[in-house]
């Protein structure tokens, strides 16, 4: 890995729109992945929570293109230039594998298709009583699986996009894609857990969501340490220091996940009963702290370079 010690680059002024895009992209991709895992690996009683996640993914995904378009400012009407090359005499579809922004736009478009169909499928299950959904059991699961792969990409590519630049901090590490993914998964598990308050039959999954959130947070913590090691080796860790409150908020989010998941991470023998409790005030507080941490982490990374 090449570590750049000196940077003479200008800040791209990617600020609030991009920060919130990264936040919602993490939740959109993460929620789809968590829901798919709940549906494919979980108990039949996890289905209500899985459905919550698919709805969350729909809302978060719908917000993403709005934020990206708004970020273009007065050129907002040219958003489609990301997809179509309008160079005179050389028009055609635009896809550059070496540009994470180009790959990401296409991935977001395709992911939107999976999210839309999955939300429709979920709505049909909820309203129509079709337990196997619109696509049937086998095709539906395969569809979710492919959608989850796109979800993993959407939740992570934003970090890779930052790294594939010449900005200090961002380009001094390979960890951002993984870090954003782990954080997005954690935030998604916390958000689904939070919204089980409004879907009582989803309460069965609350403990499992806390457990998953804790695992994702451990992963996030490991990647955060790796991030600081790599930027320290590059000599740019000093740029992260003025944002100490944001890093601490991110750590509080990780810590909250670990505290909430503590009681659920013990290995239980098969057949033992699990405590099923509805989401209470503690879940509310933990989930909000985790989500705040997800946002703070992205803000800290984005503003470290700018």
């Amino acid at each position, binding site marked *: 890995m*090449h570590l750049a*010690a000196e*940077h*003479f*680059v*200008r*800040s*791209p*002024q*990617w600020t609030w729109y991009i920060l919130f895009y990264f936040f919602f992209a993490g939740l959109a991709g993460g929620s789809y992945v968590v829901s798919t*895992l709940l549906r494919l*690996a*979980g*108990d039949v009683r996890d289905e209500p929570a899985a459905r919550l996640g698919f709805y969350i993914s729909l809302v978060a995904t719908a917000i993403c293109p709005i934020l990206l378009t708004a970020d*273009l*400012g*007065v*050129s907002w009407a*040219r958003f489609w*230039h*990301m997809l179509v*090359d*309008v*160079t005179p005499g*050389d028009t055609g579809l*635009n896809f*550059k594998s*070496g*540009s*994470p*922004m*180009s790959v990401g736009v296409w991935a977001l478009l395709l992911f939107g298709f999976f999210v839309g169909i999955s939300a429709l499928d979920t709505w049909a299950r909820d309203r129509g009583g079709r337990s196997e959904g619109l696509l049937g059991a086998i095709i539906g699961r395969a569809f979710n699986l492919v959608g989850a792969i796109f979800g*993993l990409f959407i939740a*992570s590519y934003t*970090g*890779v*996009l930052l*790294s*594939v*630049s*010449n*900005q200090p901090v961002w*380009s001094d590490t*390979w960890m*951002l*894609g*993984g*870090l954003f*993914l*782990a954080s997005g998964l954690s935030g998604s598990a916390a958000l689904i857990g939070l919204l089980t308050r409004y879907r009582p039959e989803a309460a069965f999954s609350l403990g499992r*969501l806390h457990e*998953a959130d804790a*695992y*994702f947070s*451990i*992963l996030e913590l490991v990647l955060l340490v790796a991030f600081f090691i790599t930027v320290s080796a590059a000599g740019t860790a000093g740029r992260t220091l003025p944002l100490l409150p944001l890093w601490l908020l991110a750590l509080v989010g990780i810590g909250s996940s670990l505290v909430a998941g503590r009681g659920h991470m013990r290995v*239980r023998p098969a057949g*033992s*009963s*699990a405590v099923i409790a509805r989401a209470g005030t503690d879940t509310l507080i933990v989930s909000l702290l985790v989500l705040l941490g997800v946002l703070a982490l992205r803000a800290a990374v984005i503003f470290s370079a700018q």
Partner: protein
Amino acid sequence: MATTIKPGESYGFFTDTSICIGCKACEVACKEWNQLQGNSPKFLADSYDNTGQLDAQNWRHVKFIDNVPEQTVDAGNGTAWLMMSDVCKHCKHASCMEVCPTGAIIRTEFDTVFIQQDVCNGCRNCVAACPYSVIAMNETTGTAHKCTLCYDRLQGGLEPACAKACPTQSIQFGPLADLQKKADVRLAALHSQGSTQAQLYGRDDTVYGGLNAFFLLMDKPETYGLPNAANAGLPSRNDVGGYLAAFVTAVVGVVAGIVAFRRRGES
């Protein structure tokens, strides 16, 4: 002698900083030809520089670098104040082109790097990528701007305005191969005169595959705010590694999710 400009050949600038006098004729000529209004002058309180940097309104910028030694050791040797007319380097391996998602940034028939204003959508990915802080956003047009190496003038058989205006020939324009030969001769002359610190920057392929706008410097590149060869990395250096780390995280995350959600026979 006027250069005959032919499409299909590589053209560029050789900027010899050892003879730059900081007159800023290049800045003025650039603004005049390209109809750049310029920013309001700023009093920077450290030199005659009042533009400060390359940006959407300054496609040429004369840097004034205070290099006055603590104690005078000789007659100055032309290095007490370093002056350098900075510009887009028109890199062979251009970071901006590499990341541009719209195809707005192209290499022209003159082997220069050009941003098509009608294609650019202002995503600013090129700004994040350019290692020389050259590209900047024009808030009025909402697009990225930089030196075009006077693409319109080249199409008309004219040399770029800055090179035309430079009174000391610090900025020379021409076919790249010719400029490289001139640079080699000039460097040898300076070395023979004892200016051993003189060096060419971007003449060979050690920096971004070579620069079409390359320089003769009187100090190390970092002094001029230029990344040295060790630091001149393309954004794509992190492409595979970044995705790989994300992939490993995805695998571990999915396994963690399966462990958390697996059927355990709870009743």
